[in-house]
């Protein structure tokens, strides 16, 4: 065969219907990404160049960058998120190390503290801090000391509590990848525990530390809930964008701040990807067993448990406050806070539930279709789809929400008809968390052994037989996890949907904020408790389903 001759691949015969089905699997999720992610985002970019007099240009940027207070807002945001990232990485390392390398007692206490922030909207931490340290706070009146909790200190503490579990998770994974043989080798060579930590543990954690730092930085610089509740006069980018859009109806200026908000997140996202590429895990490593060493363990345990207790106390005080008659004057207990009639009463909770279910069902189906299509694609196009699928993680919820207002709050019937519907909130939440769901799906589908599918094909099964007998049985736990992940995120997220609510349609997380801003902080607490209960129930249901699923496959043998 001569080099110039065009080579035709033969011998792989895929029936037309199967190729068509593969196309559909790819095109439907991509169309979703295009309409509900790329299109709104491009509108933000376009609107940021639309000047007040209807011309196109850099006017908005010039105006915004010329504002004196903007630079203060930017530096405020950087300081706040930087401090949060440092605290989270430090405490995260302590907790992750205590959990995976020491035999820490009362482990469940720490686990509980790490789960709690996932159950509630981010502003619950701020709410709890105010109940604890605010002007009428529990500790303030108990100790008689007035702490200035509003502003930077409160914001940093609240955001640290919110981001800490993510830092711990990343660092615990990094610690798990270590190889015991390295430690054994160092021990035999005579290295002290401290030397082993500095020479083996820390280098192994380099990328984990970097990654944890970036994640904490990113999730807090764009978080709206805590900034709204406890930020006080300390203005950050997230509150600035809200003030521009909701306060002054200045959509174009909001778009500019949105673009500014993209810069640090995309940068962090990019750096984290680079770090992730280099931090490859070693296959076949022997896990390091936890051991005992009092001089190390006791300070670690004290710090870990104090942090855990603090997290739990903050949430506990919110639960307590939700039962208090009239904080702080009449501390007798009552259920009347749960009788919420203002701010739409319980309707927003039902809307949240409904929208989150749509997010979960629609999202799981879309992501499953996307990974099914993506893994059968040739190298470069698979990478392109992968990149497109994980880009949403770099877009803050606030910016995504703003982009939805700009794209869907419009006159034409389509896409304008979606505005003000729970469906649009559901879509917004799904594309906000698209990346995390996609990555979980990719990990899950990698567990489907290729020979198993090839066996089905060789025996004579088509695409359907492959899905039914090889892919889905192995993907069930992943599908369950992604479904509940999307549901739980949908229940608690605030920053993306804050722009999508209308006088007629609101969601639970917004109600908490509104009730708090209206002065009924105990009712806000009650509402937050209800959201936590819903999410906790969902989480319990997921655990049960996963256990039931793994039992069922084993029980078949006995029956």
């Amino acid at each position, binding site marked *: *065969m001569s080099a110039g001759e065009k080579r035709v*691949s*033969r011998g792989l015969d895929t029936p037309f219907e199967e190729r068509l089905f593969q196309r559909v699997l790819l095109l439907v999720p991509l169309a979703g990404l295009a309409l509900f992610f790329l299109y709104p985002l491009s509108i933000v970019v376009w609107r940021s160049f639309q000047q007040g007099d209807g011309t196109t240009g850099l006017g908005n940027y010039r105006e915004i960058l010329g504002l004196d207070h903007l630079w203060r807002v930017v530096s405020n945001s950087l300081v706040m998120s930087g401090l949060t990232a440092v605290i989270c990485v430090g405490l995260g390392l302590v907790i992750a190390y205590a959990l995976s390398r020491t035999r820490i007692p009362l482990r469940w206490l720490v686990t509980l503290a790490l789960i709690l922030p996932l159950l509630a909207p981010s502003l619950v931490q701020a709410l709890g801090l105010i109940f604890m340290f605010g002007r009428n706070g529990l500790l303030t009146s108990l100790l008689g000391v007035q702490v200035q909790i509003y502003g930077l200190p409160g914001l940093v503490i609240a955001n640290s509590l919110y981001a800490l579990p993510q830092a711990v998770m990343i660092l615990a994974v990094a610690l798990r990848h270590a190889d015991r043989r390295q430690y054994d080798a160092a021990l035999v060579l005579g290295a002290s525990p401290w030397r082993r930590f500095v020479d083996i543990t820390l280098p192994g954690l380099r990328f984990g530390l970097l990654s944890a730092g970036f994640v904490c930085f990113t999730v807090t610089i764009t978080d709206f809930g805590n900034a709204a509740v406890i930020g006080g006069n300390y203005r950050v980018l997230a509150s600035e964008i809200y003030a521009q859009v909701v306060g002054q109806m200045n959509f174009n200026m909001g778009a500019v701040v949105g673009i500014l908000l993209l810069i640090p997140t995309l940068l962090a996202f990019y750096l984290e990807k680079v770090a992730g590429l280099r931090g490859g895990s070693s296959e076949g490593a022997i896990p390091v067993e936890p051991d005992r060493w009092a001089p190390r363990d006791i300070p670690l345990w004290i710090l870990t448990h104090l942090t855990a207790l603090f997290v739990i106390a903050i949430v506990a005080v919110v639960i307590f406050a939700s039962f208090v008659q009239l904080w702080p004057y009449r501390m007798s207990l009552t259920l009347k806070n749960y009788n919420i009639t203002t701010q739409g009463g319980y309707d927003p909770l039902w809307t949240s539930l409904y929208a989150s279910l749509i997010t979960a069902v629609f999202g799981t189906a879309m992501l499953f279709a996307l990974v099914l299509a993506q893994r059968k694609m040739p190298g470069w196009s698979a990478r392109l789809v992968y990149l497109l699928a994980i880009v949403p993680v770099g877009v803050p919820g606030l910016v995504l929400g703003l982009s939805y207002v700009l794209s869907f709050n419009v006159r034409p019937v389509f896409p304008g008809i979606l505005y003000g519907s729970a469906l649009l909130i559901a879509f917004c939440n799904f594309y906000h968390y698209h990346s995390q769901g996609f990555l979980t799906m990719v990990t899950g589908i990698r567990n489907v052994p290729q020979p198993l599918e090839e066996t089905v094909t060789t025996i004579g099964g088509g695409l359907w037989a492959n899905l039914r007998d090889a892919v889905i049985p192995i993907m069930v736990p992943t599908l369950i996890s992604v479904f509940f992940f999307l549901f739980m995120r949908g229940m608690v997220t605030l920053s993306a949907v804050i722009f999508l609510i209308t006088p007629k349609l609101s969601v639970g997380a917004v109600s908490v904020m509104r009730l708090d801003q209206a002065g009924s902080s105990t009712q806000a607490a009650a509402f937050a408790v209800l959201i936590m209960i819903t999410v906790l129930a969902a989480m319990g249901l997921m655990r049960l389903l996963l256990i039931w699923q793994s039992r069922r496959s084993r029980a*078949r043998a006995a029956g």
Partner: protein
Amino acid sequence: MTLDIRGLSKFYGTYQALKDIDLSVGENEFVCLLGPSGCGKTTLLRAIAGLESFEGGQMMLGGRDLATIGARDRGFGIVFQSYSLFPHMTVAQNIGYGLKLRRKSPTQISARVAEMLALVRLEDFADRLPWQLSGGQQQRVAIARALAAEPALLLLDEPLSALDARVRAGLRSEIRQMQKRLGIPTIMVTHDQEEALTMADKVVCMSAGRIEQIGSPSEIYTRPATRFVADFVGSSTLLSPARARAFGAAPPADAPAGSQGDDRLFALRPEDVLIRPDASAPGLVRSITFLGNVSRIEVDWQGEIILAETHRLPEFAEGATVSLSLQPGAGAWVRA
């Protein structure tokens, strides 16, 4: 039905993974594709299965052109190294899977499943799930599953490599006997020369995407055609033509007149080298390695290392001087 492959080529981009493969597999024949990892043997098996495409050449099965038939319609059976049983199906369900896809009636399926269970001696395990079986048992289920739908060709991709040595030896003869009894043409990929030599009717020795030699196990071992085969299958000492003549080897029969076979090397099996202690001889014993039934001896013969074997413990030590001679008919000329 016979499988006929002519001039098959396979490319990954500009890299050519299979180069001009010619191979035929007759009815009842057990063919082993043998070679080191990366030699293209698995790619060839997958192309035959229809799991990989090919760009050049022809692949015919009993007169049908396989290039136009997809993997699911070829009607082959395949067994992988990783067992690859359906984790959520019982042994019986796994074996009956192909028949179910072919919409056979439940009675037909259960009859055939029972037959297959008897064939692989797992009658008592019909209702177990894969994770309740040992590796060897799982692989027997995989074989039964591949055979249940009466495949036109059985493809085995390193089926024994994941098993431990004893199980592997047992399953080796079991597979061979099953194949003989059922008369199904079979292609097995392996990197284990012992496996290939003991099981195959025909060994296809491959290297770098090319077939080096096709022959019966004894041909491959005693008459390697190329330096690669001589090296990869068993061990050989490769001597230059001049050195071979010094040992009294006849020049290659097919050498052109006048030439002494200078483009060839003389491959010598260690068991064909006779070794005798001799204080005046030029051989110097470099090392003696005890292997159990034989001892392998490295002899420094005028600057060249020659391998020899003795079946008894040698009556000399390292450093002794020895003389070497060849068994009659020993050695083979190979292409360098």
